[in-house]
């Protein structure tokens, strides 16, 4: 893809669980599957390690989209972590939508260690969504911006 200086390059934070999704990202890499460099991966021990504050803080520090990847429900390394994460993120994302943050900016995807293809596809799709949504201004610091 040719680089265009004026093109909007979103900043995307992907929280990936150590056991499935991070290994999935690894597989995507070793299988030579490409996904945009805009995605910054943060490894977490389990998807339920992600505190709502992490998501908000990512937006504060300038992220345009945040995606949480974990093991498929039922496959959690710690048996049940992702079920709790699922409930928490459902409520948090619903609250962010309620506050006027576009729904597309937050996402949860279950990616197993064998799904390198799914990882790269998901990231490509997510980056496209965020590109179309544009820069996130609502959850950052708004002073002197409007």
């Amino acid at each position, binding site marked *: 893809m040719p680089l265009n200086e004026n093109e909007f390059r979103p900043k995307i934070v992907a929280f990936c669980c150590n056991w499935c999704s991070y290994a999935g990202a690894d597989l995507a890499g070793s299988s030579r599957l490409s996904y945009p460099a805009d995605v910054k991966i943060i490894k977490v021990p389990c998807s339920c390690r992600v505190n709502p504050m992490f998501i908000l803080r990512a937006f504060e520090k300038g992220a345009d989209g945040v995606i949480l990847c974990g093991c498929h429900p039922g496959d959690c390394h710690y048996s049940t972590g992702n079920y709790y994460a699922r409930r928490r993120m459902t409520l948090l994302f*619903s609250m962010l939508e309620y506050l006027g943050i576009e729904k597309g900016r937050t996402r949860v995807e279950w990616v197993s260690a064998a799904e390198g293809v799914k990882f790269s596809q998901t990231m490509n799709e997510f980056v496209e969504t965020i590109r179309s949504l544009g820069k996130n201004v609502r959850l950052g610091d708004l002073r002197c911006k409007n």
Partner: protein
Amino acid sequence: MQELVTRAKELLKDGTVTRVLGWKNGDLSYNPEPAFFETEEALSDFVYNGFCGANLSKYMIEASKKEGKTLVFLKPCDSYSFNQLLKEHRVDREKAYIIGVGCKGKLDIEAIKKQGIKGIETIKGAEMTDACDTLEISTIYGDKTVSYDDVMLSRCYSCKGKEHVIFDEQMLESRDTATKGRFDEVEAIEKMSPEEKFEFFRKELSKCIRCNACRNVCPACSCRKCVFDSNKFDSAQKANVDTFQENMFHIIRAFHVAGRCTDCGECSRVCPQGIPLHLFNRKFIKDINEFYGDYVAGEDIDAEAPLTHFEFTDREPNEERG
């Protein structure tokens, strides 16, 4: 009110309780404040009228650490908060003697002032013995009357009901005040476009001065060490520095009480800036009811709390609401 004092005196005298937790008049007759009474004489300051909106259940956390039983007066909505604290092992049932008091809807002095009534001297018609349909207000500009139903706290219009969920005995009559659906306001906001939602919340939350009154009054916010007091956090114990912190404080606070908030509405009542904070908590309650089945915090002490429990068939976070 007099029968409450008489009963409290009896219980103090026969040694059932060693102190009474109730309300006494503040600086002005229309802002009673929570108070402990240790002796029968002290009870002459006791009041219970239409302005006693304060929820006493949170004070029972401290009272549970003291020697002897405490007599506490709980309104129907306060009893949910007490039950929730009991579920979380924050209060001791053995240390509490609960008198469930009736409630005819609690008044909002700000709503009275918004009706253009200034220079208030006395307000009549707010006693529990009154019919509670009109308030006679004498002001320095002359006498005025307002309808009781026009100046209640916003929470009373969507009252959860006048049944106590926990009590040792019940006293005084109640009056039904619910006229609006609990989730009407939340639904109205949900229908707005993202821009409108954002504008609405920016307008409200930009008023926040981070006085922490909402946190301090909240019966669900009873952690010994609050995340907002942590020095590792750059939002600790200080005014919001930027718009992010204004949003963040309220999102996180609502999230921390999600599934535990009994919707007692104290946060909105105490907010000096008049931010409708209950809108955040109600949104979580509404979502929990929609996604995980109806749940009333504080109703059933053995029920599974929605955020510490899960089903294999829960909805996915990205799913469109149907």
